[in-house]
Every structure is written in structure tokens, then in C-alpha cells.
């Protein structure tokens, strides 16, 4: 197990290094830079002013020098300055992380707490009206784009209640804070919940047909014990995998949801930074997301061992 851990950690570092190279060079392949955009906004191009600005920002240097400057700073904890706001990149990124983390956490919680129980119910009640109804709900979750769902929620809120669940940066109570995040989390988590439900259902159906389930029933175990203790525990592995993957995919959904609900999180900020070609922000933020995703995958692998004793990470 220890050797496996060391090997996985080493692989993580290699992966992160690869990601840093890809992020850096992909950004430079995209045509245009911050200076082009600033001059586009100003409606003119002065070659001398442009050259001065490129020099000031250090983007006139060879790419390899720029890369080492960035990665060296990153390893030392110096994340540079935003080209746009001229503030330290960390100062721009850090306050936004908890906002997106709360939103993502709540969305995942929504996804798991709705998707897993409904998936179990749907499997246990297979072929009933309830099963069909739940399958329709899950299909709609997979079909509705989150931006559309978000706009629908906002429009309905204004039309029905004259209110709008838009981001409140200074909630006074925990209930207000919860309300700030709950609606957008539901909007973005609905798709994940639907996917989780479908995976749980199919996995449960497979497990429920196993011999040991029949044995458990024969031994007189209650339906609840059979479903949740014996079946769900064995059916949960693919569900955990999907939730782990969803955590990474969630970023995509969050970009849209943060835009629609006007939440000042990192996901929307990242899109704006890409639009401005704000390299220090994009590079550091994507690296941060990469670290989170790599660690999430690592955690999922470790959870396999916890949930399935048959899995032994030995050499």
C-alpha cells in the first residue's frame, strides 16, 4: 500500500508538470494577447505603445523564459500580478475560491443526497409507476442545460414572487447564506443528481440479482438491511467513480451557473481571465483546478480500498 501511495504521488507530480506545460503553451497558441485586447478596446493600435506595454508585462520575452519565470514563481508561492487589475494574482484568486468551493460542494451534496436514494428507490421499485416517474425526472436532468435551467429559475422567481435569488455577498444569517447558494447549487447539481441516480439504479439492479442478496433475504434480513447494507455497499463503487468525475465536470457547469446567477466565483473569473488573456490568472487558476482534480481522483482511488476490501493496492 505504501509503495502504491508513493507511486501515485509521483505520478501526480508528473501529471501536474505536464498540465503546467500544456496550460502555458496552449494559452500562447491562442491568437492575441492582453495587449491586443487592450488596444482593441481602445480602438487603435500604436506599435510603440504596444511594444512598451508588452515589455512592461514581460510577454516580449522568449516563451521558455516566460515559462520558467512563471513555474519558478509558482513553486516559490509567487503567483505574479493580474495583467488587468494589476493586483497580485493570489489576491484576486483566493477570495473567489471559497465561493466556488461552497457552490461546488453544495451541488455535489445535492447530487449525492438526491441521486443515490432516488436511484436505490428506482431500482428496488423497478417497473413500477414510481420507477418510471423517477426515470423521466432523471432524463430531464440530463437533458436540460444548466444555463437554461438557471434562467428558468430566475424568470420564474421574478414572475411568481417578484424576487430574484441573485448572489448576496454579505448574508446576515446562515439561512441567507444557504439561500444564496442553494438555488444555483440545485441548478448546477440537477444534472449530476440525474446521472448519479441512473448509475445508482443500474448498479443496484445488477447487485440485487446476485446470489449473496438472495442468501441475505433467505437468512431473514429486512428489506432495508438488504438494500442499504448489502446491496448499496456493493453497488456504490461505480457511483463514487461517477461523483469523482462529476466533481471535475462540475467546473464547466459552474462557469455557466456563476454567470447566470452572477456569482463572483473562480469559474466565471476564469472565463473572463481567458477572454482578457490574463496569463497569470489563467495559468495559476487552471493549475489550482488541476491540483484539485488530481487530488479528487487520488481520493476516489483511496476510497475504493475503503469500500471494497477485495481491492488491495499491493505491488
Amino acid at each position, binding site marked *: 500500500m505504501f509503495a502504491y501511495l508513493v507511486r501515485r504521488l509521483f505520478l501526480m507530480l508528473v501529471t501536474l508538470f505536464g498540465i503546467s506545460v500544456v496550460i502555458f503553451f496552449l494559452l500562447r497558441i491562442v491568437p492575441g494577447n492582453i495587449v491586443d485586447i487592450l488596444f482593441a*478596446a481602445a480602438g487603435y493600435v500604436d506599435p510603440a505603445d504596444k511594444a512598451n506595454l508588452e515589455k512592461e508585462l514581460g510577454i516580449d520575452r522568449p516563451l521558455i523564459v516566460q515559462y520558467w519565470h512563471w513555474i519558478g514563481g509558482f513553486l516559490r508561492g509567487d503567483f505574479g500580478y493580474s495583467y488587468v487589475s494589476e493586483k497580485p494574482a493570489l489576491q484576486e484568486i483566493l477570495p473567489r475560491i471559497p465561493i466556488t468551493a461552497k457552490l461546488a460542494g453544495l451541488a455535489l451534496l445535492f447530487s449525492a443526497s438526491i441521486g443515490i436514494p432516488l436511484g436505490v428507490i428506482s431500482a428496488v421499485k423497478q417497473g413500477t409507476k414510481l420507477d418510471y416517474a423517477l426515470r423521466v425526472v432523471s432524463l430531464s436532468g440530463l437533458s436540460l442545460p444548466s444555463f437554461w435551467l438557471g434562467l428558468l429559475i430566475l424568470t420564474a422567481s421574478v414572475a411568481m414572487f417578484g424576487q430574484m435569488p*441573485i448572489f448576496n455577498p454579505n448574508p446576515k444569517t446562515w439561512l441567507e447564506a444557504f439561500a444564496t447558494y442553494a438555488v444555483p447549487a440545485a441548478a448546477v447539481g440537477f444534472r449530476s443528481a440525474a446521472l448519479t441516480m441512473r448509475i445508482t439504479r443500474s448498479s443496484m439492479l445488477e447487485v440485487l440479482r446476485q446470489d449473496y442478496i438472495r442468501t441475505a433475504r433467505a437468512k431473514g434480513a429486512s428489506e432495508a438491511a438488504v438494500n442499504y447494507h448489502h446491496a448499496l455497499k456493493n453497488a456504490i463503487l461505480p457511483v463514487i467513480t461517477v461523483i469523482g468525475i462529476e466533481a471535475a465536470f462540475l467546473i464547466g457547469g459552474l462557469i455557466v451557473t456563476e454567470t447566470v446567477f452572477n456569482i463572483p466565483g473562480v469559474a466565471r473569473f476564469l472565463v473572463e481571465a481567458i477572454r482578457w488573456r490574463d496569463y497569470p490568472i489563467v495559468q495559476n487558476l487552471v493549475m489550482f483546478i488541476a491540483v484539485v482534480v488530481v487530488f479528487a481522483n487520488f481520493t476516489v482511488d483511496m476510497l475504493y480500498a475503503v469500500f471494497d476490501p477485495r481491492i488491495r493496492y499491493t505491488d
Partner: protein
Amino acid sequence: MRSVWALAAMATLSVLTASTATLAGEPKQGGILRMYHRDSPANASILEGATYSINVPFMGVFNNLLIYDQHIAQNSPDTLRPDLAESWSWSSDNKKLTFKLRQGVKWHDGKPFTSADVKCSFDLLMGKSQQKLRQNPRKAWYSEVNEVTTNGEFEVTFDLKRPQPSLLAMLASGYTPVYPCHVSPADMRTHPIGTGPFKFVEFKANESIKLTRNPDYWKKGLPYLDGIEYTIITNRSTAILAFVAGKFDMTFPTHITIPLLKDIKSQAPNATCVVEPTNVSTNIIVNSSSAPFDNIDIRRAMALALDRKAFVDILFEGQGDIGGTMLPPPQGIWGMPKDRLETIPGYGRDINANREEAKKLMQKAGYGPDKHLAVKVSTRNIAEYRDPAVILIDQLKSIYIDGELDVVETANWFPKVARKDYMLGLNLTGNSVDDPDQSFYENYSCGSERNYTNYCNKEIEKLFDVQSQETDIKKRRPLVWDIDKKLQEDVARPIIFHARAGTCWHPYVKGVTIMSNSSYNGFRYEDVWLDK
């Protein structure tokens, strides 16, 4: 006796009613004006910006030497008002413009405002100071200014190479605030210091901009508001829904399209909404330096094929304006009258006749029903650009031109235009002041950085100078019309239409005037108040 008492009672009642009515109309102090902002500006420095995304939130931080009257919608020479300058005067040869400055004005950091600050600001704009603006998009405005000199602490003189009455118009623009000498251009981008009614509090990129009341403002009793808060919402649907739901007191100025205005009026029927021209023209930039548009016949055919009314009807439900380079009347003060406009090829009402003429020109150039000309119509990937480009492509089909839409990301648009890597481009041109000098020199003079097509006509350039020096507006106007007509006939940058847009606010917001011939000059908000 009874009737005397009754009369006295009635008189008292009427006095009370009258006084109450006066009180109800009197501005109230206090409250925060909440507005959404359409995007996150690059920085807070108006002098370095060229978008009203910067002017709107930050104009209230500053003062100009002079300013357009904030309560008269149409900017004109008659609506110029003193601001940091108490008065101004021209020398007898109209080559020296002297301003007497206001005394006792303080910057937001407590330092006194003097003539040195004015000199610093304009030296910065003219590129003469040691400190440099990172970008200086309006340097050309001051090409006729030799130097700015101070005469003691409260007088400055602009020494001009030749008379230029339009200088006053440019100094009154929201783009021309006076900056403090003691704050660097870099600091002005992140934490602007002004003398204006509102102090800068914070600017969180993609989040919000906050201003607070300047209690030491030199206009006693102003501003009425305690502050202004802009929440940055890039999604237009969300922003409008938030306005309807009462999260905001006012929409971002001229941000509401005509179709969306209907939605707002149906969902918030009490809202006050106005539609005004933005003085932003949608036009075609033509690469006349290479084939096929180096052929004047093809350029003229293209101009003849335009059905401008169709553009206005489709995009603005009829609420747009057709004109030349200058914004058409009645809102525009320099635009050609309709009868004169219709004498320009392509502006006539009979579109079919125009297109028949265009077809003949195309056939002369070797194209026809069996041989179409394939062109790429390049434009920025923004709806305001993309939508008219699609209509343009459709209209060009009628004269044997098959257009293909070439959508370009903003970052690549100006580099592409600068290296002439386009055939036709659909472009938008915003005019910060309704003034011929600003428009002609900026967009059509030889060598101007914003003359994207490199159109260069020395004869016309001489006419630019003639109109520019004319101090009598009645004599100047026909000169401007002649130039505008010639520019359209030359297909220098065919103007398709002038856009209009809407602004809405809730009924308790008072004192807002949306300018009708500029989108850049009306955001001081010092006497806006909330009747709550």
C-alpha cells in the same frame, strides 16, 4: 363673517398644499443608487480608456475644465457649462484659449487643485510629460495644441497652432477629466483620485464598483446621493431580470435593445424608459488596397446595394437613424438634412433602382448572374457586429456578391484590420462628442491611427481644416455637410445606420438625463436623487 373664515381657511389650505407640493419636488439627500454594469472595465482610468464602460462609473469621480449641461439631452456649443474652469475666453486671433480656474477645490486626498494639475493632465494627453499613459487613444484630439501654459495657480492657457473652436467640445467630453499631478497614471488605473462629487471606494474586477459621496465637494449641497454601487453582471438577461425584480434602481445606460425594452415595459410597467441615439454608427470598412475592392466600381456597387431601412427595421424595429458620418438630426447637430442625404448614391428611396445601377457596375467589373464575386465579410464576434453583418451578406447577394461571414475574436480584430487582412469588415464607430473634428480627423484623415481603411484624400483633408477653423456654426454646418457627402460618395467607410438604445429607471430615481447625441458625456450624477 362666515365667508371670511371660509376664505381664510381656503387660503391657508392652498398655501399648505403649495408648500407640500414644493417639498415633494425638492431633491432629497441620501441613498445609494444601485445600478448594474454591463461588463468589467479593464481599469478605472478614463484617460486610458475608449469605452463608456469606464466613463459611466468613473465620470462622477472627476471634474473637467468644462462640461456639457447634464440636464440637456443634446450636447451642443450652447450647452457648455463651466466646471473646474469658472470662465474661458479666446484671444482675438482665436489661437489662445484661456481658462480662469476655480479656487478652493480639493482632490479627494485633500491636496489642493491648481493650474499645475491641468497642465499635467494635458501634457500627459499630448505625450509631453515624463510619465506616460499606458494607452493614449485620444492623443490626436490635441494635435492642434502647441502647449498648455500656467499663469499663476488659477489660470491656464491653451496655445493653438490655428483656431479650433471644437477644442471646447472635446474638453467638455466625459473622456477629458482633469487628473491630479501627484498621482501616477498607474495608480489612476487602480485607485482614481479626482475632485468630483463621488470618491472611489473599490473596484473588484467582475464583481462591483463602489463610489461614495464626497462630503467636501466644491458644489455645496451636492451630490444628493450617498454613493453609487455598480454590480457587474455580464449576462444581459440576468441583469434585466434583476432590474425588474427591484435589485437595481437603474439599468446600465443605453444597454437595453429595442426588443428587450418591450419586455421591461411589460414586466415593470412603472419604469421610466427612454430611447436615444448612441452616436455609434454601424459601417463597412473596405480594403481598397487590394482586389477586388481596389476597383471603385465594385465599391460603389456595394454602397448602392444597401437597404438601410431594412437594417433599421430588422435590428431596431424601425427605431434607428439613417445618415452619413455625422449623427443625423434632430438629435445630431451636424448631420445632413434628409433631402440632402437622399441625393447621395445609395441613399435614395428606390432600392430596386439603386440595385439595378449596382448590377450594371458589377457587370462592368466582370461579374454577373453567372459569375458571382466571393468575398469574406469579417467582423467581431459580438452580437452588435455579427447581426448586421449577416444582413449585409444577404443584401450583397442581390448584386452578385456572395459573402461569407468571418467571425473574429475581439483580441484578433484590430491586429487583423491593421494588417489589412480583410476584404470587407462590419465595424462600429462610437463618437464621444457630436463634433466634426473628432469624427473627421479620427476616422478619415491620412495617417490617423483610427483610420482603419487608410482612406486618404488630400483635397478633403484641406476641407477638414477649413471647417475646423470656422467659428460661426451656421457657416460651418454646410461645410460639414459637403464633406460628409463627399465621404459617402467616395465610399470611404459607408455608414449603414446609427443605433439607438434604451435606458430604464424606477420612478423614484430623479434627475437622470440620457444624452441624445453622445454615450460618453452624461454620467456625472451629482444631482441625481432618490425619492424614497
